[in-house]
């Protein structure tokens, strides 16, 4: 029982907990769970070294279904608990599961600061553009005019783009994937896991009950060839039939360019550079709606908060030269006298 699970090759089943999964039939969350459970054995991280943390909402039930350590916390605050876990124990691999309500509404402030600090945590934001657990109110990513139980005449709020939020918050890894493509999800999750620092992944997720088909215009099987562009670092951004559509820039404005079969693509196609020091290209990509981009928009290196915290402690200990016992502490910075 006390043996590490590392030596033996783990399988998907090792990450399945004994709890019955209780999402609605047909919910996109099932596929996301399956994709995570499938990718986990590939990461080489022992089960016991993995912690899933969540807030409140449908997506936040996720930790109960993972046979790892898990913490289902309170609404919007999961980033804070995850930060404490990672800072206390940098040896742990911490995943955070949140949604568009939990992460961008009630917990927006915490998510912003988690991303800004570059804590080495992997964030899965399930975006279904609706409040599911509270039965169907609009969310911060719902489109303007959305009619819901709390907005019978349509929402008057402007929606937030989660990727632009993440990029503006200085996230060092920003990606998007969607719930009906298990293979793509797996690739993105693995890339996130291998990134040192914060990783933010927006997962377009269908809520069959309260917002069914929200992403259909982009991701339905018939349309997606024309509506989705899959990013690959170092390669031109292409899509469409035969990959004969690309993006080029006119000033700062991106435009779609098409070329004929057998023709060479234009020389000025935008080549995706995920490592660009500037976040401006990633912003541009995040904004695109036709096509919508999938994959890693941005991945840059930066020192992590948890490593910085540990580094300062190590430096302080070196300076103290081992004179850090309690007796020394009681005298630290104070003048003493004897009675």
């Amino acid at each position, binding site marked *: *029982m*006390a*043996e590490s*699970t590392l030596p033996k090759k783990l399988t998907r089943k090792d990450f399945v*907990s004994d*709890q019955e999964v209780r999402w609605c039939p047909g919910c996109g969350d099932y596929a996301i769970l399956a994709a995570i459970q499938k990718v986990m054995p590939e990461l080489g991280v*022992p*089960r*016991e070294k993995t*912690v899933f*943390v969540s807030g409140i909402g449908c997506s936040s039930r996720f*930790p*109960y279904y*993972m*046979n790892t*350590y*898990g*913490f*289902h*916390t*309170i609404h919007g*605050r999961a*980033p*804070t*608990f995850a*930060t*404490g*876990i*990672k*800072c*206390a*124990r940098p*040896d*742990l691999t911490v995943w955070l599961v949140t949604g568009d309500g939990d992460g961008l509404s009630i917990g927006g*402030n*915490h998510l912003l*600061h988690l991303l800004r600090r570059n804590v080495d945590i992997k964030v899965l934001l399930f975006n279904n553009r609706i409040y599911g657990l509270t039965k169907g109110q609009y969310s911060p990513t719902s489109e303007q005019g959305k009619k819901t139980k709390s907005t019978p005449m349509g929402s008057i709020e402007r929606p937030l783009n989660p990727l632009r939020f993440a990029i503006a918050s200085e996230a060092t890894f920003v990606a998007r994937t969607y719930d009906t493509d298990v293979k793509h999800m797996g690739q993105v999750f693995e890339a996130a896991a291998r990134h040192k620092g914060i990783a933010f992944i927006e997962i377009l997720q269908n809520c069959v009950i309260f917002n069914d088909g929200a992403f259909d215009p982009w991701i339905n099987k018939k349309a997606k060839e024309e509506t989705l562009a899959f990013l690959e670092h170092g390669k031109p951004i292409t899509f469409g039939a035969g990959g004969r559509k690309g993006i080029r820039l006119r000033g700062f404005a991106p435009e779609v360019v098409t070329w004929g079969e057998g023709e060479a693509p234009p020389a000025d196609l935008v080549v995706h550079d995920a490592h660009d020091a500037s976040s401006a290209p990633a912003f541009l990509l995040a904004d695109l709606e036709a096509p919508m981009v999938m994959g890693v928009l941005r991945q840059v290196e930066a020192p992590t908060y948890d490593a910085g*915290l540990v580094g*300062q*402690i190590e*430096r*302080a*200990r070196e*300076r103290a030269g081992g*004179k*850090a*016992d*309690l*007796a020394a*502490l*009681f*005298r*630290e*910075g*104070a*003048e*003493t*006298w*004897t*009675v």
Partner: protein
Amino acid sequence: MSATTTPSRPGKPILEFERAVVRFAGDSGDGMQVTGSQFTTTSALIGNDVATFPDFPAEIRAPAGTLPGVSGFQIQFGSVDVHTPGDAPDVLVAMNPAALKANLRDLQDGATIVANKNAFNPAGLKKAGYEQNPLEDGSLAKFRVIEVPLSDLTREALKDSPLDPASVDRCKNFFALGIMFWLYDRPLDPTYTWIRAKFKGKQVLIDANELALRQGYYFAETAEIFTAHYAIKPASHLPPGEYRQISGNEAIALGLVTAARKAGIDLFYGSYPITPASDVLHALSRYKAHGVKTFQAEDEIAAVGAAIGASFAGALGVTGTSGPGVALKAEAIGLAVMTELPLVVVNVQRAGPSTGMPTKTEQADLLQAMFGRNGECPVGIVAPATPAECFTLTVEAARLALTHMVPVFILSDGYLANGAEPWRLPDPDAIAPITPRFVTSSDGPFRPYAHDPETLSRPWALPGTPGLEHRLGGLEKWDGTGNISYDPDNHHHMVALRAAKIERMQVPPAEVMGPAEGDLLVLGWGGTFGALRTAVEQVQREDGAAVSLCHLRYLNPFPPDLGEVLGRFKRVLVPELNLGQLWTMVRARYAVPAVKYSKVKGRPFQVAEVVARLREELAQARAEVARG
């Protein structure tokens, strides 16, 4: 007293006193806190018992010379037991008219006022709202007023300094301190040491401040303003040992590090800056060599969330704040109760509600600590009585949290946080180890909610332990497995179990100072101890009355014998800096006809007002007996 650096004293006689009270008051930019601290350090170093009361505005720099900008620092020092900073100053140092005006009502007839005459000019008087100069209009006739042209004298003393005029003026607080050092026969060396460390590498500032201090001392000795000076001998009642001065906030920081070390785990402190608790964060952030991790969070909620996360991961998770911050943390504290994780919550109370009076003291968050969460959500509560006791009770709070796997509150207050007293350095080896219920393996499936029959704590299985993977959360748990449960009987059982965990805490019996039974019991808690003890002792001594003090350190659970103790007195008086919160609790719990005594002014109790109230209570008690 060092012969080399302290001038010899010709002539003037030295009068000996048991204790004295001095208050320094000036603009918040006048350096009154530094001046007061230096006077305190020196007094402590020569062996006096001391107690201090810094009193400063919330504004960093209110308009100079105005009443809202007045900052004060009071110290009582003595050769005998000193439990409070004193009711009324024997000497008030007033750096400007506003400082005089703001503090005048605290002076008793015959008190000495040392006033900076230069600041009593038309502009200064106008800012303070004086129509006439109080130094000239006879309104201070009841006091002994010593007018000193502090600004002129400082400029004259530093006329050869290369400092600019504004910087020269900033040295006048040390000129005033020099005067007070002569008046109370204290050495200058400790302040020289402080100046040299503070301005290290800035020789011009070192020279100027030392010179101002020394010239102030000489001035007091030479000028015909004082006919005598006073000596206060070292205190003889202090037990032998090595001492330092400590404030409540410093003591909490040291207590937290000690507790973590005694439990063999790391300390994680999550906090968002807030008056008057920020100094705990500042102190702990300097203790990195001791393995302390501090996290300045984006807000109060993040601070407690991170602390609970750290506890989940195996650290001693602590969050520190004041009342407004506790309000924000309430939901997360409930999660720690539900997930049965250890957590220490430090509340350095301040005057409320809402933003209230941030730099003023109050003890009105007791019921917030008890009940300020949704659902049945019990926590442990301890309350230190003195700055030094903040150390021991912090260690005990962490011990209870780690032993029972629950949140425990420490209720300090602004008065304890900033006040200082001598602290005898404890022997680290004499502090009992703390033994959390860690588990590293399990026979059969791991049961994260298998409760210990004695402490009712659940096993603490740390992430990283193979085979003990488990999930926690805020949904109700099935006792034993920890699985989510909506079973009605289980919920009732778990609510009772969480309450019983607190009741099972081993806390010491109530301590009664004075007769074990009698006419009047004063029941107090927290930072009012010094004033209550001094008052009770005075009434015992002067009136021969059967009055006792029971000062509670444990508020949840109460000491096991508290009900019995209350029953041994004819009358119970509960003095509090609130509208009767402990009073509400003891009446509800023990159904005793306790009487409340409230003061909610943002200021501590004065000994004299408590003495007066005790005498009233005793008179009423006698009248009741007479009526039969």
